[in-house]
C-alpha cells in the first residue's frame, strides 16, 4: 500500500508525519534540529529518501541538512573534515556557504536594493527560504534565498553556486523586502522544458527564465497593487506564491498581496488575469493545485489587515474552474474563534487518488483532507508555528 510522508518545517524544528494511503492514522516524529527555525523541508522527486532541510537561525546563520534514508539520519553535506581538507590543509570547504557570485566569468556585480523607507541597502545573504530538488537529478537542488537570489547545488548540497542572472537582471535596485524580508520563496519547474523555470520574490514579483537560468524576464503584466506609486511597474509586486499543474505548464496560478488577490496566467506569465470571484478577501499566502484536476485550485483567504481567518472561521476555498468560482471548505475546520495564519510554503498535495490536501498553521496545527478538501482532520494540533508543509507519496 502507498504511504504518505508529510515534511513539516516549524519555528522550533522539523517534524515528519507518516501514514498509509488511507491517511487516517498518523505517526509523528520530531523535532529534528530542535530549537532551530526550519524554513523549508523537502524531498527529492527522484529519490524519496533524499531529504533536504533549510535549518536557520538569527543567532547562528544558515545550515543545510540532508538525509539519505528518509529522515532516519542527517548530516550537513560538505561539512566533514574529509570534504573540507585540501592539499593545502584545512579548511577550504564550502559547506553551508551561500556567496553571491560577483565573478567576471559567471557572476553579476552586487547592487543595492530598495529598503522599506525607499533608501538603498546592501545585498546581504540572510537565510534559505525554499529548497526545490530537481525533478531529474537527486544531487541537484535549487535554493531561494534572502536577500533575493537563486542558488543551485549539483553535488547534493556540498557546495552552492548562485545563478546570478536573476539578481543581475538589472531591476534589482527597485526590489524591496516584504514584511518577512526580501526573499525568493517560490521555484517552479516546467516539466516539459528543462530550460524554463519560474520564481517569485517578495516584493519584486514573478520572473521566468527560458534558457536554464542565464537570463530572466519579469512576468508581472496584468498584476495590480494599489500601494505602488505607478500602476503597472515592471517589478515591485509582493507575490506570495505561484502554483502550476504539470499537465499544463503554461497555466500558472498566483496569490498576490492584498489589493491583488488570486491571478492566473494562461501564457506562462506573459499576462495575468485576476480570478478572485466570490472569495471573501483578496489576501492570503498559499495557493496549490489538485494533483489530478489541473483546474482545481486551493487558497486560504485571510483578513488583509489582521492576517487571520475572516470572522474567526478557518476556511480553505476551492475552485474547480481555475478561479472566479470558489466554494468554502469547512468540514472539520474550526468555524469560530480561530485566529491562525497559513504561510506561503505551508500547503501541499499528495499524489494519491483521491488527492490529499495538507496545510499547517501558525498555531501549530497540520490539517489533512484525504478527499480533495471535502473533509479535514488535524494530524497534529500543537506543533510550533508552522513555516512549511510538503508531502511525499511513496509507493
Amino acid at each position, binding site marked *: 500500500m502507498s504511504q504518505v510522508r508529510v515534511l513539516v518545517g516549524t519555528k522550533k524544528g522539523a517534524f515528519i508525519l507518516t501514514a498509509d494511503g488511507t491517511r487516517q492514522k498518523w505517526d509523528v516524529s520530531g523535532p529534528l534540529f530542535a530549537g532551530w527555525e526550519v524554513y523549508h523541508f523537502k524531498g527529492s522527486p527522484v529519490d524519496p529518501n533524499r531529504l533536504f532541510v533549510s535549518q536557520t537561525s538569527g*543567532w547562528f546563520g544558515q545550515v543545510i541538512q540532508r538525509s539519505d534514508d528518509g529522515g532516519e539520519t542527517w548530516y550537513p553535506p560538505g*561539512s566533514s573534515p574529509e570534504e573540507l581538507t585540501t592539499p593545502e590543509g584545512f579548511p577550504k570547504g564550502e559547506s553551508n*556557504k551561500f556567496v553571491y557570485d560577483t565573478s567576471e566569468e559567471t557572476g553579476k556585480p552586487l547592487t543595492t536594493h530598495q529598503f522599506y523607507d525607499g533608501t538603498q541597502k546592501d545585498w546581504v545573504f540572510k537565510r534559505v527560504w525554499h529548497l526545490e530538488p530537481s525533478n531529474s537529478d537527486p544531487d541537484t537542488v535549487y535554493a531561494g534565498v534572502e536577500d533575493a537570489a537563486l542558488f543551485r547545488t549539483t553535488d547534493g548540497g556540498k557546495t552552492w553556486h548562485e545563478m546570478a542572472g536573476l539578481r543581475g537582471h538589472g531591476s534589482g535596485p527597485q526590489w524591496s523586502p516584504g514584511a518577512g524580508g526580501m526573499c525568493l520563496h517560490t521555484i517552479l519547474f516546467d516539466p516539459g522544458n528543462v530550460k524554463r523555470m519560474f520564481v517569485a520574490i517578495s516584493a519584486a514579483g514573478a520572473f521566468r527564465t527560458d534558457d536554464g537560468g542565464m537570463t530572466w524576464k519579469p512576468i508581472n503584466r496584468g498584476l495590480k497593487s494599489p500601494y505602488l506609486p505607478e500602476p503597472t511597474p515592471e517589478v515591485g509586486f509582493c507575490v506570495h506564491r505561484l502554483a502550476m499543474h504539470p499537465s499544463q505548464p503554461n497555466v500558472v496560478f498566483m496569490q498576490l498581496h492584498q489589493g491583488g488577490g488570486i491571478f492566473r496566467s494562461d501564457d506562462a506569465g506573459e499576462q495575468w488575469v485576476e480570478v478572485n470571484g466570490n472569495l471573501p478577501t483578496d489576501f492570503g499566502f498559499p495557493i496549490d493545485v489538485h494533483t489530478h484536476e489541473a483546474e482545481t485550485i486551493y487558497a486560504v483567504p485571510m483578513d488583509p489587515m489582521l492576517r487571520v481567518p475572516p470572522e474567526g472561521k478557518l476556511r480553505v476555498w476551492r475552485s474547480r474552474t481555475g478561479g472566479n468560482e470558489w466554494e468554502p471548505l469547512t468540514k472539520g475546520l474550526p468555524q469560530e474563534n480561530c485566529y491562525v495564519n497559513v504561510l506561503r510554503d505551508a500547503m501541499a498535495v499528495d499524489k494519491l487518488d483521491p488527492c490529499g490536501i495538507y496545510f499547517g498553521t501558525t498555531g501549530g496545527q497540520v490539517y489533512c483532507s484525504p478527499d480533495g478538501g471535502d473533509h479535514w482532520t488535524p494530524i497534529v494540533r500543537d506543533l510550533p508555528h508552522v513555516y512549511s508543509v510538503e508531502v511525499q507519496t511513496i509507493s
Partner: protein
Amino acid sequence: MIRVEIPYHLRVLAGITAEVQLDVEPPVTIGAVLDALEAKYPTLRGTVRDHITQERRAFLRYYACEQDFSLAPLETQLPEPVAMGVEPLLVIAAVAGG
C-alpha cells in the same frame, strides 16, 4: 588543553554534549581558538563567525575571566588562565528569543 563553552544549539548541531577541549599552539588568541574549534567541528563553520567576512555573528559574544572580548581583534591573546586550561572561553548567545 583550551576549554571552550558554546551555546546549546551549537552543541546540538556539532553533536557535542559538554565543554569543548582543544589543542591550540601558543599564542592562544581568540582567532586561534576559533580556528581550532572549526577545525575540530567543521559543521560550526559559519555559525560563530560569518562565512565570508569572518566577523562575529552579531548576537554572539566572547567572554573569558570576566572580561568581554567580543569586540577585540582576533589576534588578541586570551588571559593566562584560559591559555593554561583553567578557565574557559565562553561563546554566549547574548540575546534571548521566543
